[in-house]
């Protein structure tokens, strides 16, 4: 049950972006999607991005990025009474590492410091966007059950934190500390356990370029289709080349609320296969739904490429 409204190819060039339009070479498509999640358990991934606050060229030196023109605080939140999280991330949009993204730790008016070091350096084109947060995804009108429905956000080590909804906001498990600022990194998903139907409306920019989502061994890697308009077949991804053959897997569940197993898929080094290592083709391939996610069982840290939705 999905309603998607893509506002026809709106050029969203803000002034800085327009100045560097030649380096990005595409217009952003904006829209919204209403996803209905039946009562039960789900892995859900938002499929939109937020509009960029900077688009243009930059110079990478380690985890420092210079040559930017910025305003405002793009670093971590600065709460004193609750955990802080990144508010913005920088994505490289040119070269071999295009589609990789990095949280911003701090910034000046001309540069940012990243929380981790990109695998490339020198002149690149970049885009900086605010993170989508739990507060953007879960709102009072979504029908979420106060105190009862949970949202799980996964870390790199295999653990997760559970968040709830109380007093009209997303909270920690003390039901008092607001945690609406917890980011949901692009391409990532969350676990939702809801006692009644949940209606999630997400708004933003449709991604039209490939995105490289980092996954980690031992972690619960919830990776979405990142496409608000149509399901993504596994064979249309690069999983055949990105998964270690016969060992790393992708698990797909249904969206009916019972987490019924749809498929466990592998790679044989050239194809995406079923769990008997029979290659899928474009007809037989299972898909990641617009509101669903795939769980990647990674043996080593790596990137999974999500194809852009509106290329």
């Amino acid at each position, binding site marked *: 049950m999905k309603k998607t409204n893509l506002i026809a190819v709106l050029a969203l060039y803000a002034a800085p972006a327009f100045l560097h339009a030649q380096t990005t070479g595409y217009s952003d498509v904006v829209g919204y999607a209403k996803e209905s999640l039946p009562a039960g358990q789900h892995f859900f991934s938002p499929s939109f991005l937020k509009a960029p606050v900077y688009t243009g060229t930059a110079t990478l030196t380690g985890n420092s990025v210079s040559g930017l023109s910025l305003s405002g605080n793009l670093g971590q939140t600065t709460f004193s009474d609750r955990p802080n999280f990144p508010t913005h991330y920088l994505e490289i949009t040119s070269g071999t590492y295009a589609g990789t993204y990095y949280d911003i730790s701090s910034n000046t008016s001309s540069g940012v410091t990243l929380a981790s070091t990109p695998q490339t350096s020198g002149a690149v084109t970049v885009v900086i966007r605010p993170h989508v947060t739990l507060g953007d995804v879960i709102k009072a009108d979504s029908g979420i059950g106060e105190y009862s*429905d*949970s949202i799980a956000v996964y870390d790199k080590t295999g653990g*997760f934190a*559970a968040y709830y909804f*109380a007093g009209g906001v997303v909270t920690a498990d*003390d*039901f008092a500390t607001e945690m609406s600022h917890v980011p949901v990194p692009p391409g990532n998903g969350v*676990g939702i356990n809801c006692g009644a139907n949940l209606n999630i409306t997400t708004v933003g920019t449709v991604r039209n370029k490939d995105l490289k989502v980092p996954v980690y061994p031992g972690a619960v890697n919830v990776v979405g289709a990142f496409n608000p308009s149509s399901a993504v077949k596994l064979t249309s991804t690069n999983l055949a080349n990105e998964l270690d053959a*016969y060992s790393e897997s992708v698990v797909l569940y249904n969206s009916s609320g019972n987490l019924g197993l749809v498929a466990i898929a592998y790679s044989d080094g050239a194809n995406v296969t079923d769990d008997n*290592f029979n290659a899928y083709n474009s007809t037989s391939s299972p898909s990641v739904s617009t509101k669903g996610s795939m769980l990647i069982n990674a043996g080593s840290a790596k990137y999974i490429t999500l194809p852009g939705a509106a290329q």
Partner: protein
Amino acid sequence: MKKSNNKIHHIFSLTVALLLAEIPGAVAAISVTVASPNSSSGLIVKSDQVTINTSGFVRVGKLTTATPDATKNLPTFANYQYWDSIFVDVNSASGGGGITPSTWNFNSSGALSGSATGVSASTFPTSTQLWIWAFNFGSLTSGSTGGIPVFSSSDFGAGKITEWAIMSADEWIAPADNLAKSLVINQVGGDTVNRLIAGTDLGNNIAMIPEPSSYALLLSALGFMVLSRVGRLSKKIGGGRA
């Protein structure tokens, strides 16, 4: 030759499949949260409906029997031994694999919150019925190795354990791997199967039940209140016994 290759491939595939079986997810753990921050979500209160704010804690876990003996509901040492023998806590020290929070001790407002993390999804598979066993005395040590106090007969009686509550609700079922479940106190009561083994449903709040002698007095008081109310109603409508 092709057939032979296919056979080798098939055997290889089967071998790998067997090796990889049952590992669709990297981690198999759940979180269980107790949701009792205020009277809106529901509190566990003493039998006199006053909040518990000096000591007391909750155990959270599952029962090893689907048909617990509900007649053993009063807080005596003998009954404690019975429930303790069938209760598997989410805490590691009791087999559940999880780390429990200090916020499962009642705070100064009588509230409870917080999550046990890393609870074994194999010990608590999806749809396991979860229970809360609340005490008016004692405290949990948070962490994986601390945890559940072991009581002796001397811990029961005046100034120590005099009240408890044992409860569950239709909604309190363990989630799937890598998901969380919140146990909201106001969900207790009204189930088709009574899962308020020990306690009184006050609407949102649940009141503990006291030890036997006090429980008898409580029942007498409740009975008196009911009779008085019946008497008043009878007078009001001009009826009553002949």
